[in-house]
């Protein structure tokens, strides 16, 4: 399932590091690099770099304390319901997935030994032998069947019910699971690597015990307060290295940063990019940046005024000053985006699509034609969509200069997603990176998608989506996804100014960090893979 490497990217450094960690020798690694088109000399340099990052052998012991940014009484250890970094981090420590996505964005096997299909419709999953749950029960295919079927039951409240719907049948025979899909989908191994698809024991109803196969065993869990876990001595993988791991949340960002600075916690998750200035001048904290395809966007519904008039959405795409957002709002911890959700480091990225520039004059003429200059245009933003008020302020400022009367309506984060997002004619969204273009497009741009933020409707687009989904032929897929990126960038009402990197502040003695495209804190798996160096 590994994609051929076309260009060397920082993500590939990560992959090499991962390979070294798996125990690959130098020859194997060089072969891997050469296969990716990297010259021998350059290959050596890359290996040196990755080797240095991992020079220290993992050390066992210690009590790891992580401060996340959100915790409430709604905290859950049910992977299907997990909704933020707090839930993901806990679930990653307690459970495992069939597959996981590594630092380079590639699919690796975890509880599965293999996930294979010849037609992308019927998939065979072979499970690892000898894996046990924390309560002593052995992992079998039944657990996988139970886990996957839960997502189809509305009573579960699964966050990925939309994705799970394509699974029509799951059957198990001891350690072999057969998954049948409604239509071919070549991305199934990636989908199974999403956090929500962690495997729980057959018949589980009470998830507060956190009974999984994961690296840590639950000792204490108080929703909204904290969780404490201890090392799983019977873990099937190497590690974990910490004796125990404690997680709680400090909602206030300066307080989270200060807690790392004072040494009270080892990891402060999701810090403000502006805090880099404090971090860089301080020996008691190190920055850990993860480049993500997460973004905040400003969305015009194409079925409501003012977005229903031709050229309005396009005008806003020209009016948004992306460099200002990248430099001033996100302090450089961002990549400029081009109004479509696939980042430049994705193998499916369409590099030929021209980057849209800041062009207020062009926006002005488009708005003039649409009659938008003069009357109030209201945009709804909220702290729920990170930095959206700042984005809107940048837009408002540029708009003021061309006679656009943009009024910002900042509403409470409380209830934002159920009451404003998707409902308002012009509002902000905040989309977490999903690992494949298929997931992104099906969730946010397919005509029938419940989260189609701008009500973008195109039969051609829907047909292309279905076609690409079933293709095992990579170049062909890349071509289709490339065209779809252009369609979204030009046709949808979603203004996507930048991809936001994630900044965690960590204690400098924390070793083994590798950024992961699924999210900050190594895609929330930090407790399992890191250790305290000398």
């Amino acid at each position, binding site marked *: 399932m590994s994609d051929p490497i076309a260009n060397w990217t920082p993500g590939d450094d990560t992959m090499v590091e991962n390979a070294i960690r798996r125990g690959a020798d130098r020859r194997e690694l060089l072969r891997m690099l050469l296969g990716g088109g990297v010259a021998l000399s350059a290959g050596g340099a890359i290996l040196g770099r990755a080797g240095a990052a991992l020079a220290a052998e993992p050390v066992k012991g210690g009590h790891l304390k992580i401060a996340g940014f959100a915790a*409430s*009484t709604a905290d859950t250890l049910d992977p299907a319901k997990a909704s933020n970094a707090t839930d993901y981090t806990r679930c990653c420590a307690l459970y495992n997935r069939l597959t996981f996505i590594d630092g380079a964005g590639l699919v690796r096997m975890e509880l599965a030994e293999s996930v294979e299909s010849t037609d992308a419709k019927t998939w065979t999953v072979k499970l690892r032998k000898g894996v046990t749950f924390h309560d002593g029960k052995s992992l079998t295919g039944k657990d996988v069947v139970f886990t996957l079927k839960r997502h189809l039951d*509305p009573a579960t409240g*699964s966050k990925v019910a*939309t994705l799970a719907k394509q699974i029509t049948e799951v059957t198990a025979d001891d350690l072999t699971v057969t998954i049948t899909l409604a239509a071919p989908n070549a991305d199934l191994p990636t989908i199974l690597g999403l956090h929500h698809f962690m495997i729980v024991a057959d018949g589980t109803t009470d998830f507060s015990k956190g009974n999984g196969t994961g690296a840590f065993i639950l000792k204490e869990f108080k929703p909204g*307060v904290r969780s404490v876990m201890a090392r799983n001595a019977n873990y099937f993988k190497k590690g974990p290295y910490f004796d125990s791991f404690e997680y709680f949340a400090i909602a206030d960002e300066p307080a989270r940063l*200060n807690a790392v600075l004072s040494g*009270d916690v080892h990891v402060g998750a999701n810090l403000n990019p502006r805090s880099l200035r404090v971090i860089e001048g301080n020996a008691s904290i190190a920055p850990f940046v993860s480049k993500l395809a997460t973004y905040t966007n400003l969305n015009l519904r194409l079925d409501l005024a003012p977005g229903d008039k031709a050229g309005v959405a396009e005008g806003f795409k020209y009016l948004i000053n992306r460099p200002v957002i990248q430099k001033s709002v996100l302090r450089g911890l961002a990549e400029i985006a081009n109004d479509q959700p696939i980042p430049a480091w994705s193998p499916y990225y369409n590099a030929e699509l021209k980057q849209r520039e800041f062009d207020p004059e062009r926006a002005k003429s488009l708005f003039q034609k649409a009659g938008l200059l003069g009357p109030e245009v209201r945009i709804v933003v909220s702290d729920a969509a990170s930095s959206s008020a700042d984005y809107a302020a940048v837009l408002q400022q540029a708009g003021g200069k061309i006679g656009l009367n943009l009024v910002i309506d900042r509403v409470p984060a409380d209830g934002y*997603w159920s*009451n404003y997002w998707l409902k308002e004619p012009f509002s902000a969204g905040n989309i977490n990176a999903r690992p494949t273009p298929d997931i992104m497009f099906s969730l946010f741009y397919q005509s029938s998608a419940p989260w189609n933020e701008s009500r973008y409707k195109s039969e051609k687009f829907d047909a292309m989506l279905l076609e690409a989904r079933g293709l095992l032929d990579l170049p062909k897929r890349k071509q289709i996804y490339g065209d779809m990126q252009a369609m979204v960038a030009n046709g949808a009402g979603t203004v996507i100014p930048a991809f936001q990197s994630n900044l965690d502040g960590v204690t400098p003695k924390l070793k083994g960090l590798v950024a992961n495209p699924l999210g900050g804190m190594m895609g929330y798996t930090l407790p399992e893979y890191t250790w305290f160096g000398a």
Partner: protein
Amino acid sequence: MNSLILRMIAGRIVVTLMTLLIVAIVIFCATTLLPGDVVQILLGQSATPEAVAGLRQAMHLDQPAALRFLLWLKNLATGDLGVSYVNGIPVAELIGNRLANSLKLAGVTAALSVPVALTLGITAAILRGTLVDRLVAVVTIAVISVPEFMVATLAVIVFAVTLGWLPALSMTGDVTTLAGLIKAFAMPVITLSFVISAQMIRMTRAAVIETLSAPYVEMALLKGASRRRMVLHHALPNALGPIVNAVALSLSYLLGGVIIVETIFNYPGIAKLMLDAVATRDLPLIQGCAMIFCFAYLLLITIADIVTIVSNPRLRHA
């Protein structure tokens, strides 16, 4: 007089029950005004209509809200606070621990700030018009004028980050020694003392000055009684009513009003719990917290009123 106070307490119990009922109704009305219900909030971005309907049914929330409220009231009459919609844990259990935490913090803060505030207030009153008096006035206002998140953050930067004397977080769960306990409580207690002392200082000063200006006190002063003696023996007992009221109001703030301090120092108290409950529209939990706040408040003002009655002969015989 004792019988009068007993009668008052009996009356207050009735009044307390009435007020609790009013609070429950006010809270119910206010939360129904809030956009979205618990299911929509829990599903967040995933709240598609069918997902909402499915989960609502699974959580037994398909009855009308008003009916559920009446059922909750009925159970409350038997002392049952109900079960959280969000995680199925009994509300009493969720509140229990965190209420204990809040009471600890409030207790320590009160033990520190009440004596300090009363001393400063009385001193300022005795030295009325002097530099000390003005200094106390300006400093108290200056201190509460700074938003508490600024005081708290500044305290963390100075004492935890720069000097390293105190922990940045107040997690009393793992504390075993007295020194550890003092360290853990130091910063939140100081921050909160800043917030609540000003009102007590100013009200104490005002009340003492008011009684000092009573003709009989002025007469005594003119006759040469020491000002200090007058304050401690005559003015203070008479000013006790308003002072105790101000103290009661300040202390009631220590349970529900400390959201920011709980957030910054990561202290698991009950104010943050109620904020969570509001954010997730968890009605039984919101109501449970509101009942606690209301009860604590009524208890405090009842004590204040008893003190007022005892200290004011005019009211005593009324």
